[in-house]
């Protein structure tokens, strides 16, 4: 496998993906980054976001919630709290989550603000990724 990257995405709920790809782009806490084969060793924390992988001429989208990425020249390991490929995203559930989070944010007293916004963000990005799949 010359000039390919091994991409492993693992979560506490199992291995989500393990494939040889050409290019990976993900959202780190310090901003988005792209990885091509031969990248220097690199480690970063991830924030809730979208991971884009290019394989041959296909592009795939994966939802990744916070975690870590370890990049070495021929391999990318993503350790995420949760991750879903675009086709596995449950849009209905995400929409319900948005509603719940918004309601929680509206009641002003004693809301775990950070948690609610994180839930909102996760759901919004899930939907965004899922919609990309439909658009194609």
């Amino acid at each position, binding site marked *: 496998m010359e000039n390919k990257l091994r991409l492993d995405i693992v979560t506490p709920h199992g291995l989500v993906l393990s494939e040889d790809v050409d290019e990976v782009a993900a959202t780190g806490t310090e901003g988005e980054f792209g990885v091509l084969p031969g990248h220097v060793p690199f*480690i970063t924390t991830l924030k809730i976001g979208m991971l884009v992988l290019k394989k041959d001429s296909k592009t795939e989208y994966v939802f990744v919630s916070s975690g870590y990425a370890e990049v070495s020249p021929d391999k990318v390991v993503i350790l995420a709290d949760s991750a879903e490929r675009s086709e596995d995203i449950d849009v209905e559930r995400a929409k319900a989550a948005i509603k719940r989070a918004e309601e929680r944010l509206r009641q002003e007293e004693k809301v775990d603000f950070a948690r609610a916004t994180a839930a909102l963000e996760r759901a919004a990005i899930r939907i965004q990724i899922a919609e990309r799949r439909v658009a194609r």
Partner: protein
Amino acid sequence: MPGLKEIRKRIGSVKSTKQITKAMKMVAAAKFRKAQTRILELRPYADKMNSVLTSLAKTVETGHPLLEIRPRKRIEVLALTGDKGLCGAFNTNIMKAAFKLIKEMQSDTIDVSVSAIGKKGTDLLKRRGLVTRQSWLGIAGRISYLNAKEITGDIIENYINETFDEVILIYNEFKSALVQKVSVVRLLPLAPVKTEESEVQEPAASFIYEPSQQAIFDNLLPKNLEIQVFRALLESQASEEAARMTAMENATKAADDMIASLTLQYNKARQASITKELMDIVGGVEALKA
């Protein structure tokens, strides 16, 4: 020889015991399948987490408090057991290993403290007259990540406060439905992973850290510890249900054997009494004839 009535009664009671053990086996089997799926799903993540840390530790020079090795003055032994019995040697094995370890380590210069996860461990320690530093009950059966977080939080806090200088965890590792292995691991200090290769002093590719090495470590080390504890909890859970399944299977078989031998005894006794009655009648007839 016990009378017919007593034997019949005993057969009845063994039969109802058998029903219970059989039901417990079914319940354990169902719980076991769930627990097994969970641990099998978590393992790749825990392994990857460990390997990321290993490759990081090779290049790191900073003295993070959780990596630092201090002279051992006080060692914490953490025994992970279940809340319930009737699962064969599951809990006993853990406690045996724990007592052995405590005995080995305790010396004039080293103090050992114990904590238990699970009611059985707590009880067994109490019976031995040992005071638990901390005990977590009611976790088994519905393990969540929060349990691991709570336990890890306590350990880290006490480690940083220098309440103890080393933490050792003893738990049942799940190998298969039939095999569970008692496993003893050091949780803290996070082993600055043995790097035999690093002696070559080949400048192991240094990492680019984002945001910073310190931030990554502050984040990753406790997380890794949580995952290791969480993994141990799930391993133990799967092992417990597997052990219970086997124990109940054996109990059911033993009950079957017992019923068979009691039935034999019952039939023998019944035959004997019939023969005796017959003899009496024949004897009576003979006496009348005479």
